[in-house]
């Protein structure tokens, strides 16, 4: 497996610091559900970044990576829904809970193909929602243009999460070493985009 470099560690540290800033200062003023939904998403990024710094890319070998990498877009998309279209919070919460449960269950109990399909549907839908919703909100003037960066962050989160999740299912979209090479940059960019989008809201 590819060894983690000093540059990778620096990029991950920056990601960790930005995620910590977002959790500490970037969610002030939000109500309970969106605040904690975003906290879970950024919290997983933060802890994952720290563990990658400590353990290197071997830390990705755990089976739990698939489940946690699904939780990132699910929780952030739930936060967006609860914040901007609260009337859909309950149905989306049910989708997120069932989707998460399905990914976790099929990961351990179902055949590889079914697990991959469930993962693609749940992860893909959440990723699209994070990308599209800020775009719609921005185009309709509910938020400033800078909020589009949240959509960009969402797209990167979705892409990064899918890359990781499919890597762990044994059906990598890109070669393993390529994914590991771009992962720290991708994590940094997605966190930076999300952070900037929130600040410019």
């Amino acid at each position, binding site marked *: 497996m590819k060894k983690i470099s000093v540059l990778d560690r620096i990029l991950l540290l920056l990601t960790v610091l930005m995620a910590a800033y977002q959790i*500490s200062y970037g969610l002030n003023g939000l109500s309970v559900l969106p605040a904690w939904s975003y906290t879970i998403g950024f919290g997983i990024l933060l802890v994952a970044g720290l563990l990658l710094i400590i353990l290197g890319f*071997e830390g990705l070998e755990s089976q739990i990576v698939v489940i946690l990498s699904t939780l990132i877009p699910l929780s952030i998309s739930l936060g967006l829904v609860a914040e901007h279209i609260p009337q859909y919070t309950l149905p989306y919460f049910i989708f997120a809970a069932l989707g998460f449960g399905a990914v976790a269950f099929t990961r351990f109990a179902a055949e590889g193909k079914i697990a991959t399909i469930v993962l693609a549907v749940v992860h893909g839908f959440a990723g699209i929602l994070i990308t599209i919703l800020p775009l719609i909100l921005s185009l309709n003037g509910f938020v400033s243009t800078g909020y589009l960066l949240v959509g960009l962050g969402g797209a990167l989160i979705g892409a990064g999460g899918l890359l990781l999740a499919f890597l762990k299912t044994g059906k990598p979209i890109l070669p393993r070493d390529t994914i590991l090479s771009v992962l720290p940059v991708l994590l940094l960019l997605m966190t930076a985009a999300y952070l900037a989008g929130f600040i410019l809201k």
Partner: protein
Amino acid sequence: MCMLTIRRVTKKYLPLIKSLQTGLLVVTGLAGYMSARCPVHNIPTVLGLSASLLLSISGSTVLNMWYDRDIDAIMPRTSKRPLSTGEIEPGKALIIGLVFSLIGVSWALALDLLYGIVIFAGLFFDVVVYTIWLKRRTAWSIIWGGIAGGMPVLAGRLLGLGQIDWVGIALALGVLFWIPTHILTFSIRYHADYQKARVPTFPSTYSFQTTRLIIAISSILATLAFGVAGYGVGLTWGFLRLLAVLSAGLFILAVKSLTSPSERLTFGLFKYASLYMLSTMLLMFLTGM
């Protein structure tokens, strides 16, 4: 010439105080002080607090190393320490340890009587109770090491407040419960070393699995204690959320280490626990600013 001599002497004697461990404990003391909303620009007190903590913690560390030099020489991990190799004479180390401790505790007493007593208690528990009396007799000695480790944060807070309060005790308990996570992962990683030196540890007295269970339980208790302390200190919701995230990371790692044990995971838990403590103290510190 003079600079070269200073550099040479520093390089030779610095390992005696385990600078990272001492530094982390000094940070807990400063965080305890700042958690009482004391101004960081109160220069004389901050300097006095830092210096008295640094000297007393360094002193107790040197005294520990002086007393344990025989077992340090047996264990491969510690056999390169200056007292084990003979690079520093034991008599010199003993004098350094006693002088540091004496100045540190005296300075602490001069700052505030109760603060000085707590600092002295920490030194006493660490050197006499933990190192000299219990370390070679029972694996449970780490509890006394943990109590000693909790004293700097308690002392820092009481110096800021002028009294011991429940928040200070919760902070000290957080450190006390954090110590097993830190030390027991170490005793798993270097199990063979401790066996060789015949120092009783949890893995050798009980089992690796029991030790991992204790690590998981103590991690949960540490996060709860820091959570309660954080609330008492008045951390913002943002900081409390961040503390919850960091605590969840420690908890998940501890449970994972219990269910799927591996040397890599043990090492990861050990490192994460150190970062967790540093981050928690930083949050307490920032709250006071």
